[in-house]
C-alpha cells in the first residue's frame, strides 16, 4: 500500500513540474547567456563561410540563409516592413546602415580575390534585462578581424572591428500539452565599429 501511495505522490509531483510556467530566475538568465554565446559562435561560423571564396556559390548562399535565420523575422510597423539591420561606423565618422540580408549578400561579393575572417575568443554577453515587450534583451559583443587579399595573397584591406549585437531571449512553451519548453534566442540590429585598420592597408 505504501508503495502505491508513494507512486501516486511521485506521479503528481511530475505532473506539477510539467505544468509549471518558466520563471526568469538567475539560473534561467544564465542559460540564456550560454545559449547566446553558442548562437554567436554559429553566426561567426556562417560569416566565415559566406566570405570563403573557395566554397561554391550554393554553399555560401546556404550560409547566408542560415545566418539570416538567426535574426528576428521581418515585421510590419505603421505599414512599413522592418528587418534587423547592420549599422557600420567608420573611423572617419561615416555611418551607414543596411538590412542584415543585404549585408551578408554584399559580403559574398566583395572585390577581393581572397577573404579571411577570424575572431577573438572574447565574446561577452551583457546582463539580460526585461523589456516592455515582455522578452529579455541583452547585447553580445565580439571582435572580428577582416583581411582582403589579392591573387598573390598580398593584403589589400584589413581591419579589426568590434561588433555589438542586440539579443532577444524568449522562453516559449512550444509543447504546451507536454509541458516542455524551449529557449529561443534571436539577434536584432548589429553595430559594427571599425576600431583599427591593419598596418599594410
Amino acid at each position: 500500500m505504501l508503495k502505491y501511495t508513494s507512486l501516486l505522490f511521485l506521479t503528481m509531483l511530475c505532473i506539477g513540474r510539467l505544468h509549471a510556467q518558466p520563471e526568469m530566475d538567475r539560473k534561467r538568465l544564465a542559460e540564456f547567456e550560454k545559449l547566446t554565446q553558442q548562437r554567436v559562435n554559429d553566426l561567426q561560423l556562417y560569416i566565415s563561410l559566406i566570405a570563403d571564396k573557395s566554397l561554391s556559390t550554393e554553399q555560401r548562399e546556404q550560409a547566408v540563409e542560415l545566418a539570416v535565420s538567426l535574426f528576428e523575422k521581418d515585421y510590419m510597423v505603421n505599414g512599413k516592413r522592418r528587418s534587423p539591420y547592420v549599422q557600420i561606423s567608420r573611423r572617419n565618422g561615416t555611418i551607414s546602415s543596411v538590412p542584415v540580408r543585404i549585408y551578408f549578400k554584399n559580403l559574398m561579393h566583395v572585390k577581393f580575390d581572397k577573404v579571411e575572417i577570424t575572431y577573438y575568443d572574447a565574446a561577452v554577453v551583457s546582463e539580460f534585462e526585461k523589456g516592455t515587450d515582455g522578452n529579455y534583451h541583452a547585447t553580445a559583443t565580439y571582435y572580428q578581424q577582416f583581411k582582403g587579399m589579392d591573387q598573390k595573397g598580398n593584403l589589400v584591406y584589413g581591419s579589426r572591428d568590434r561588433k555589438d549585437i542586440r539579443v532577444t531571449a524568449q522562453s516559449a512553451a512550444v509543447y504546451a500539452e507536454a509541458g516542455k519548453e524551449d529557449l529561443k534566442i534571436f539577434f536584432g540590429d548589429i553595430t559594427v565599429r571599425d576600431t583599427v585598420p591593419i598596418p599594410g592597408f
Partner: protein
Amino acid sequence: MTMNRLWLLVLCIPFSELAAQHAGPQTNIKTGVEKHPPERFMNGQIKHLGDFIDRFNEVVKAGTEGQAALRSLFNEDDLRFPAHGRMAQPYARQVDAFIEWAMTGKTLIPKRGVMRAVVGIKVSYEEVVDTLKVHLRKDYTSDSAAYWHITKVDNLLRIRDEVKKNRAKEASVQPSGLPPNASEVSFLPLLRGLDDYRSLAPFTPCLACRDTAWQKVESALQDGKLTIENVVSNRIYLTAGCWEMELSEFIREKENSGWLISDLFEKNNPVK
C-alpha cells in the same frame, strides 16, 4: 510491466524536458571557427554599462586597495589630468575628492538606480543636416521591465514655429507593442521606434515633458520635414551618493577604453 519497471519510467519523467533545449548549430557544413586568444585591450575594455557598474562596485568594496582600479575607470587621456608639462586642473582635484569619498563611504551603484542619458541624433530638417539633442531617463515598470523614455528635446534653431495641436493630441495615445529600447548601444531601438511611429509621443509618457520645443519637433516629425538618421553622441549619467558621473564610450585599442567616466558633478557643488 512489473512494478520495478514502472518506478524506472516515473523517475525518468522529470528529465524528459531537458530534451527540449536546443542550442547547437542548425547544420553542420563545417565545424568550429578559428579564434585568436583575446588581446589585453579586449578584456580590459568596459563593453556594457552593467560591466561598468560591476567594476565600480568591486573596486569600492575593495577599499583603499582598489584606488588605482577606480582611477582606471576615468578616461586617462582627459587633458584636465596632470601630465608632462601640464598643470593639474580643478577637475583633477575633484576626481581625487571623489575617489577618497568612494573609498571611505563605500557607496555602491544599484543596477536599477537613477540613470539618464543625453543623446545627439543626426537629423535632417528640410534637407539640412542638424543635431537634435534628446534627454532620456531609464525607467522600470511594475513588472520590472526596463525602458528609456524621453524627458526633453532641445530646440533646433532652424525648426519652424509650427505646432499642430490636433496631431500632437492624436500622438499622445500610445500604440501597443512598442519596440523594446532598453539597450544603450547607439540607442538603435529608440531610433527605429522614432522612425516607425514618426513621433516622439510613444516614448514620452510624461505629459509635462511635452513642452514647446518638444511639440515643434513632434510636428516636424509627423509632417515628414524632420528625418532621423543616427546617434552621433551618447552620454550616460549615473548617480553614486552625492555625485553624478558622466560616462562616454571610448572605442580604442587600449585597456582604458569602452564606457569610462568623462566628467563628474557634485550635486551640492555644481560649480567646478
